[in-house]
């Protein structure tokens, strides 16, 4: 752009900028005045935490929503907000997180879905009371996880949909209280047997992976009294499983409880079939964009 027109546009941009700053300031000032504990800054075109005046001094807040912004990083001083129970950064441009985030002692719900995370900081699994963790739609795989990731035994819901996992580590079995586990549309080739022992599991999302077999242990999951929902669509299942799935998930579960299936399963394991190819096209995912 050039010439006078450009100048006019600059003026426009400045005005927009002024508007944005004023809106953020209003939210913050209102919150300070009323002593509100929840701050909603979604869709404010925020690029940096520095644009939120004095946010890290508002240590009384228990909830902070920054969904639909353009944040690339989170400063280490996020740990100042030690009363936070809810932190939502859905749909930002986060590429990394500070390791201090897991020191938030009261954080129960952490939403980091739809960002550009391909790695998590060391010690990320150190949350004291985290119950719901949503990391859907990032660029994570099993190698992105720090050692203590699976020691978050307080988790009741873990969303890892739309990532790049090829295996689910058997350490997932440590999450003994888990009620919701989602690996929808990853590249997962097998399910660990440990999932069969989750006594409180209510949702298991496995659609759109590269799964061919279900460990017979999943037959222990209780679809009736626990009302456990298992989603298995869009996987290259072996034919007998695919056939059962046509008529319903409960038929699949009944089938994998049979000795016949147990035999098929062990046989297939012995043969060591090669994993089906990746079919999910992830090139258009916005998490793949670079700045």
């Amino acid at each position: 752009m050039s010439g006078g027109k450009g100048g006019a546009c600059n003026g426009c941009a400045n005005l927009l900028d002024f508007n944005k700053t004023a809106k953020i300031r209003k939210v913050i000032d209102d919150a300070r005045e009323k002593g509100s504990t929840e701050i909603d800054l979604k869709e404010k075109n925020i690029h940096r935490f520095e644009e939120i005046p004095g946010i890290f001094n508002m240590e009384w807040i228990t909830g902070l929503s920054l969904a639909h912004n353009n944040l690339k990083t989170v400063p280490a001083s996020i740990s100042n907000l030690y009363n936070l129970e809810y932190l939502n950064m859905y749909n930002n441009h986060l590429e990394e997180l500070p390791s201090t985030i897991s020191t938030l002692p009261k954080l129960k719900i952490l939403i980091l879905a739809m960002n550009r995370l391909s790695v998590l900081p060391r010690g990320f699994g150190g949350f004291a009371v985290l119950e719901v963790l949503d990391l859907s739609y990032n660029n994570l795989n099993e190698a992105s996880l720090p050692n203590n990731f699976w020691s978050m035994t307080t988790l009741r819901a873990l969303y890892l949909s739309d990532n790049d996992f090829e295996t689910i580590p058997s350490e997932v079995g440590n999450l003994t209280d888990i009620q919701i586990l989602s690996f929808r549309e990853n590249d997962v080739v097998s399910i660990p047997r440990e999932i069969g022992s989750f006594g409180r599991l209510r949702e298991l999302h496995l659609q759109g992976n590269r799964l061919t077999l279900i460990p017979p242990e999943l037959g222990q999951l209780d679809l009736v009294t626990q009302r456990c929902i298992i989603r298995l669509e869009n996987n290259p299942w072996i034919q007998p499983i695919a056939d059962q799935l046509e008529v319903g998930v409960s038929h699949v579960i009944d089938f994998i409880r049979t000795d016949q299936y147990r035999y098929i399963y062990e046989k297939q394991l012995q043969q060591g079939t090669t994993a089906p190819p990746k079919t999910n096209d992830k090139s258009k995912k916005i998490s793949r964009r670079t700045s």
Partner: protein
Amino acid sequence: MESSPFHKQHQETAHPLYENLESALANLSIESEYDVAEYGVLGPPVPPRRNQIRASTPNGSLSSGSLRESGSSGGGGIPDIPVLATPVNDPSSSIVMSLSSMICHRCNEGFEPHEKIVKSHGETWHQQCFVCAQCFKPFPDGIFYEFEGRKYCEHDFHVLYAPSCGKCNEFIIGRVIKAMNKSWHPHCFCCEICNQCLSDSGFIKNANRALCHDCNAREKAAAIGKHICYKCHGIIDDKPLKWRNEPFHAYHFNCTTCSAELTSDARELKGDLYCLRCHDKMGIPICGACRRPIEERVVTALGKHFHVEHFVCAKCEKPFMGHKHFEKKGLAYCETHYHQLFGNLCYTCNKVIEGDVFTALEKAWCVNHFACSICNDKMNQKTKFYELDLKPVCKRCYEKLPSELRKRIQKLHKIPPKKQQMT
């Protein structure tokens, strides 16, 4: 006979110093449930077993006149000194009978005329022969101990024969208690629980411990899960009556009001005991759980009274202690277990939902928490929403999703996702 008391003892028992407590076992018929019952039998104290020679040299009070004569230079009737050098059994030496008839008790040789002679209990020794049978040294201060005809210095006698105490490890001189395969000073043999001395009262062997009768009874009762009456120390076979935190046979007590002999269901009130009937007449609330009177804080719930600490969750049995409880079919539950068994927890706050419940996508929410899972905007019964991983997504957020994701969501649902309405 001048033999030492020690010697005398020796003739009567296998080991003269010991009182063998084990020997009396067979006579006793106590506590046969345990390994063996051993019982201490104690005789009169043993007199000192120490011998002392009255003099350590032949010139002392021990020596006879003849010795003195033999040692004197004045020409008496002992001229033939060389004779003494010859073996005593040499017939030619018989000329000096008084001296030559004395031979050393140890080496069987005679004595030189001027030689010092030791005499003890009618026997004579060369001074160099009157030594400890073990270390061959003279007896310090002339004190020796005799055992099976041999004499020992105090040190070696202790080392060889005197027992050491199983408790303090010191040598035992005087009365020895032999029990539990060890020897003990009488004051060292004590009950392993209460430390009371057992030397005169006897003991019971219980799990390889020596115990007094009381402690054994208590241990035995504990082992079979019964109480010991605090009054008579007997085992309580039926239910004990607890009073001031101690168990008793109920029949030791009478009702404070009607004097009837009490049973185990008697009630304690301010330190006094009452029979059930008299107690009920006094109108004190009874705990619905433990059936005992409630004297402090009363919790009233489920149409009953409870001790604060006895009003508990029917599932986990933890007392509510003033915390919220949930009632269902005459039982009370903590929040967690009420939900686990009957209720719905809010997907967001994970608390039992009181009041209105929002149900959708196999989940439940409390009124305050039914909101878009992406932007957290509140929703109500009329709000249309989309579903992603069984979470509600408001229309505005759904439209913000990248088109590639929306396409996939549609494909997953096979048909374009119908706007869902809450049920």
